[in-house]
């Protein structure tokens, strides 16, 4: 059982589910914390490491709280 659990964790097959919004807001909090601590913008890797998540999961989560289409121009009027 322990071996399977480790396998699952290492292979990212199962993780404790956190909502994308939850991850995104945590990522933004961590970004602010790291930015003031290091006096520079943190990278996605640094934020992901802090959250113990793969970086592409952070990317996916951040996109989920973004506008659905073009940032600047609506696709339909």
């Amino acid at each position, binding site marked *: 059982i322990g071996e*399977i659990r480790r396998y699952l964790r290492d*292979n990212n097959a199962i993780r404790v589910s956190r909502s994308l919004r939850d991850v995104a807001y945590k990522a933004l909090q961590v970004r602010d914390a790291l930015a003031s601590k290091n006096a520079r913008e943190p990278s996605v890797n640094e934020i992901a490491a802090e959250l113990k998540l793969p970086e592409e999961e952070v990317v996916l989560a951040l996109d989920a709280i973004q506008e659905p289409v073009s940032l600047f121009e609506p696709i339909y009027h």
Partner: protein
Amino acid sequence: MLNRFRLEFPSRPENVGLARVAVAAFAAQLDPTLEELDEIKGAVSEAVTNAIIHGYGNSPDGIVIVEGILYGDAIEVCVEDAGKGMEDVARAMEPEQTSDPERLGLGFTFMKTFMDEVKVDSVPGQGTRVIMRKQLATRH
């Protein structure tokens, strides 16, 4: 068929994450639950990892193709490689079957657990195509 995509990338381990989130962003169009989304992502990780390590023997020069198709409330995901293929697919899909003693041989078992249907076409020396389908709970 409502929508579809096709993604191609070299067989590098860092692209497993790309495949996983591309399928997740696509599946999100069906408004899945978080759990359904994690299951789809888990199945994609297993299939793409297999293409890279078994299909191409960890060489970064192969091409992996991931396709997604939406049908009503179902998603179909295909993962294809042009790698070494399998002699006996039915056997390879059994739990704890692995050609690598360091591995657990549970990849196909997870794919079958996470998805409703898993079909595998494989030709030795030519490659493998894994076709997975999942029906999402209708909430509309």
